[in-house]
């Protein structure tokens, strides 16, 4: 690494060398995050079809395989789907606003990827270790809605427009509850840096995780996360029984696939973030020998996988919410719960130090 830095310094001079070195290094690191992420998205779609299949007493995809190996049946399905999507023609509707129509999938996808910059995968592995990490993620995820609104408007289709309107109202509503739930987290950890939030949950066992003192906030955050990503049972933006497919009715081929990729990478982001801020990120559940030997990254992946399984489980289990019920849940249930919890947490933090260092509270308030 240092050798490469020196090489850049020699080649481009002392002023430009470090800057260009940083640029090249960061681009390589971004590729190192995005490529596995795309692979995870591909196999998440496969897992979804398989898991929901088994839940509904079906088998799911089991035909496409690598090199004709029979016991790998189905494992090449996501690759085959991707190849098919690339081959298809992108049709731009005649009344559509061409520039915005093409821009919309990109605007959905870019924030979904940008948010990954501040995610810590294990104690030292993070692309950008910034102070305001949690705020940055909130800002990036709130940008994703533009792609959906623009897609709905630029398609020049009533179905797409209705889907976009529904999605915009829903995302703006649930963002508030999500933000308030995260306020509780940063009150506990006294930091916006995701690495520091995980370090604040360090202790003898999983009792130290913020999951326990903030359990209602975890539920609010996770359910809001499901709503933010427009997943079932909150998928009124797509609502195939009412508005065909919502905002991406008019999209085909790779343009549609980009929306698809954005949705699934957002799902993985919400699951990873929930495991970082509530389930102790890279920390093992019990801090003793066999568990501490497993690398932190594996723990993070296991926790995120469990939450992703919940996403799929919800989709197989719950019927779609009615629109007014979605709004009621967001505004009249979640926001009051979070506001009350912020006040309760504030009161606990103001308790005298002698009470805070007594048994259950000393686990979380150090």
């Amino acid at each position, binding site marked *: 690494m240092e050798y490469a830095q020196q090489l850049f310094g020699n080649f481009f001079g002392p002023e*430009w060398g470090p800057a260009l070195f940083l640029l090249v290094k960061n681009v390589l690191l971004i590729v190192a995050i995005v490529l596995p992420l795309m692979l995870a998205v591909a196999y998440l779609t496969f897992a979804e079809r398989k898991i929901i299949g088994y839940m509904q007493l079906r088998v799911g995809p089991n035909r496409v395989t690598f090199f004709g190996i029979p016991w790998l049946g189905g494992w090449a399905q996501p690759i085959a789907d991707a190849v098919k999507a690339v081959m298809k023609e992108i049709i731009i509707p005649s009344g559509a606003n061409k520039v915005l129509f093409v821009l919309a999938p990109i605007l959905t996808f870019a924030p979904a990827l940008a948010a990954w910059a501040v995610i810590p995968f294990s104690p030292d592995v993070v692309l950008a270790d910034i102070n305001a990490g949690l*705020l940055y993620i*909130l800002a990036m995820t709130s*940008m994703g809605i*533009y792609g959906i609104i623009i897609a709905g408007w630029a398609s020049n289709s009533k179905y797409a*427009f209705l889907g976009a309107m529904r999605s915009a*109202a829903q995302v703006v509503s649930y*963002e508030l509850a999500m933000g308030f739930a995260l306020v509780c987290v940063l009150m506990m950890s006294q930091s916006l840096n995701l690495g520091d939030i995980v370090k604040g949950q360090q202790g003898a066992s999983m009792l130290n995780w913020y999951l326990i003192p903030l359990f209602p906030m975890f539920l609010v955050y996770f359910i809001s996360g499901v709503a933010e990503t427009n997943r079932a049972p909150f998928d009124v933006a797509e609502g195939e029984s009412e508005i065909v497919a919502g905002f991406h009715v008019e999209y085909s081929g790779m343009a549609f696939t980009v929306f698809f990729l954005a949705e699934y990478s957002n799902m993985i982001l919400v699951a990873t973030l929930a495991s970082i801020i509530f389930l102790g990120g890279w920390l093992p559940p019990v801090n003793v020998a066999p568990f501490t030997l497993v690398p932190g990254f594996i723990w993070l992946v296991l926790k995120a996988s469990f939450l992703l399984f919940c996403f799929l489980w919800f989709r197989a289990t719950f019927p779609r919410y009615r629109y007014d019920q979605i709004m009621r849940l967001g505004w009249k249930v979640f926001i009051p719960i979070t506001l009350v919890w912020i006040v309760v947490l504030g009161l606990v933090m103001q308790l005298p130090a002698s009470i805070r260092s007594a048994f259950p509270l000393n686990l979380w308030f150090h």
Partner: protein
Amino acid sequence: MSFADIIFYFFSTVLVASALGVITARNPVHSALLLVLAFFASAGLWLLLEAEFLAITLVLVYVGAVMVLFLFVVMMLDINLARLREGFWKWFPFGLLLGLLMSIEMAMVLTGKQFGANELPTPAARAADYSNTKELGRLIYTEYVYAFELAAVILLVAIVAAIALTLRQRGGSKSMDVAKQVAVKREDRIRIVSMASEKKE
């Protein structure tokens, strides 16, 4: 020109161009989207000034929430573009006067004694672990606590007023009582009738 300069000029060019686009674009939806771009570029400039909290809050609040609602409304309006441009030349002198007045005011402020480059030296750069979120929070809740609370109360009054203005009781509107819906039992809705099986004719 250093790396930071290039970034500065990039963001300022985007900012000025998109701000111009906001007032020259014919389609109001394009104007709103260009305004989003302008916010984003100015957030980039703030980041360059090491004001990361303000920059991210600008994106979070204005780009993530306010402009979404703006766009929402603008897209739903059925705007007649020809009629919108009708009175342009009639109001042009007035607008020109206003613009001139504003630029004179801005020039007076910026060339004034208090704002000269000598009066306001470049603040020292902070270490990487300096958190201006913490610093802002401390200032807001200690030194400026009354002003801050006052602003909060004003916002609360505005929220209450907005709800009071739009809340009206209309006769005949259908709404549901959620508690009632949840309390419904099976016996209220279905009746199980047992009957003997019938033979097919």
